[in-house]
């Protein structure tokens, strides 16, 4: 249909633990257009990472996608077997994780592991593979790439390692890159370098990007569209500047108000009371209601998504123009 690159519909990912069913992702739907940069924000436990992992079928038992569909250009990913998924991973959709020290293999040189990634999808000579690797490393801003191929991950700084991880994700010119908190572990000056390069790369190659982060400021300067998640649900989505300047959902509003950057120095911050709910027993209705100042009796029933132009939100008492 509509030519959307990635369509996620009513995704439910649950973890069946001894303590009960953890409803990590609970009916998430969104789409991603070609070349679009989508920011996915939320706090710990909001389901943003599990959503990213579910797209690529990376959920291990006791976790399971219990319902919903993930379609890449019409191809249903949730029903693919391991071999089918293998052909998609790294080729059409690739992933960048938070900690490059954990994702790079410490006993293989950068060149060797990049070669493995190239050969996972193509029959190619060692020499051509290494040339490709060097070319991609140059694109992500690693100087003297050809000589750095023989270096090991520990010989790189954190920022350089994350560039290598991004380079590996770019090897096959994927249609989508899912990046999970890729700059969280980095210093701000290095983060700025990476953000700059990622945005240029996405624009040059037309790759769509799902940027998962807890940092609203980073996402706001990078993404075209924003999805805010809370307790496994999408509570608000829309063009990034519109959502952040005029939020509809009280949770989005609360997040913005609790940022020190949005207050005068020394001023008491408007805080969201309480804690995120346990995903083991979510409230029947709106999961944010116990922390929400606008909550009323109607919030005991789950609010449906309200659409308005490019924006949508899930709230009985939205703020702003929609109220």
């Amino acid at each position, binding site marked *: 249909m509509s030519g959307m690159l990635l369509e996620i519909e009513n995704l439910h990912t649950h973890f069946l633990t001894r303590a009960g069913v953890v409803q990590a992702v609970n009916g998430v739907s969104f789409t991603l257009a070609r070349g679009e940069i989508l920011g996915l924000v939320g*706090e710990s436990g909001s389901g943003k990472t599990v959503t990213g992992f579910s797209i690529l079928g990376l959920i291990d038992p006791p976790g399971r996608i219990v319902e919903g569909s993930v379609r890449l250009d019409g191809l249903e990913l949730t029903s693919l077997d391991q071999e089918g998924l293998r052909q998609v991973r790294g080729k059409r959709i690739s992933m960048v994780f938070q900690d490059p020290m954990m994702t790079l293999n410490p006993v293989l040189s950068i060149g060797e592991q990049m070669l493995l990634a190239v050969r996972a999808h193509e029959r190619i000579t060692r020499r051509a593979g290494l040339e490709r690797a060097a070319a991609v490393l140059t694109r992500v801003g690693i100087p003297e790439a050809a000589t750095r191929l023989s270096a090991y991950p520990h010989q790189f*700084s954190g920022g350089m390692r994350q560039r290598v991880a991004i380079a590996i994700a770019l090897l096959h010119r994927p249609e989508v890159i899912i990046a999970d908190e890729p700059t969280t572990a980095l210093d701000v000056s290095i983060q700025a370098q990476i953000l700059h390069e990622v945005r240029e790369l996405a624009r040059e190659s037309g790759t769509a990007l799902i940027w998962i982060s807890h940092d609203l400021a980073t996402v706001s*300067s990078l993404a075209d569209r924003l999805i805010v998640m809370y307790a496994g649900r999408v509570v608000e989505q829309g063009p990034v*500047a519109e959502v952040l300047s005029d939020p509809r959902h009280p949770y989005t509003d609360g997040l913005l108000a609790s940022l020190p*950057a949005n207050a005068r*120095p020394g001023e008491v911050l408007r805080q969201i009371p309480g804690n995120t709910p346990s995903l083991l027993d979510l409230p029947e209705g709106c999961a944010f209601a116990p922390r929400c100042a606008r909550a009323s009796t109607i919030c005991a029933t789950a609010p449906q998504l309200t659409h308005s132009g490019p924006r949508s939100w899930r709230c009985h008492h939205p703020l702003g123009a929609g109220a």
Partner: protein
Amino acid sequence: MSECFLRLERVSKRFEPRLSLGDRIAARLGATVETRSVHAVDEVSLAVARGETLGLVGESGCGKSTLGRIAAGIIAPSQGEVTLDGEPVMSEGRKRSTRIQMVFQDPFASLDPRMRVGEIIAEGPLYHGLVPAVGARSYVARWMERVGLHAEQAERFPHQFSGGQRQRIAVARALAMQPDVLVCDEPVASLDVSIQAQIINLFLELRRDLAITCIFISHDLSVVRHLADRIAVMYLGRIVEIGPRDVLYEQPEHPYARALLDSVPRLVTRTGTRVEFRTIAGEIPSPLEPPAGCRFNPRCPFASADCRIRPPGLMARHVGGGEVACYHPLGEDGQPLRECVG
């Protein structure tokens, strides 16, 4: 700053590699063994006034945590001295003062998982005789309520609390020692945004009610701006600029301080705004081999021959008070105020 309460006097810290017997033999036989030391903090002098909050910012490896630990008397400086109200905080390699306490970054690692929260908070005051054993329970209750916890939670264990509550416990433990100075090392870095705000508000409250002196260490410049009266920016073991909060944020004169502030992403709320990510060329050099002269010179667009030879000391900033360690301090337009020569 007429009255200097906490004073660090030309404090340095070097971490020497501890060579094993095998390494020493290998070194004798001519193998390459790492014998260079890490210059974590290099001749830093600081003075904090009573009741003031000093923010310490910088990137990983700049020495801010080491400096904080030296100030708190947790590690001994290789050189220099820390004094509180004129009294040395450490002597003969031991901490002598209980008047400085510390709050750490990760409340999952800094609380003993096998102790009840009440025991954790009471341990220090009991040992130092700040409170008799019979009064410990009500003493603990008082501090728990002070940081927004319920007194009846004292019987619980740390794992029964969320991250934000655990950080409150860590703050209560530090406060129960009735310190004059609190050194906080990234106390909100591991918390979610909404919880972060709760803890920041707690610090604001404590500062107002207890008039506590505070060194607040963070890599998050917006958090530091919110809490600190004065801010010091560190780079590779040295303070490159220090000044009142607003002037430092609005008109940094050191090229590094300016670049650091420029690289913080800002919240974009206007449609069609295209953000330019301004970046600093290169990466932080290894503290094993810091560059000669000004340590920022290899990455600085304004470096001159002078910068490569002689490290600049802290001198008065041009506007708004404070000090900057730079031969070519920047004006409002981000260009050096003086001509670069060489």
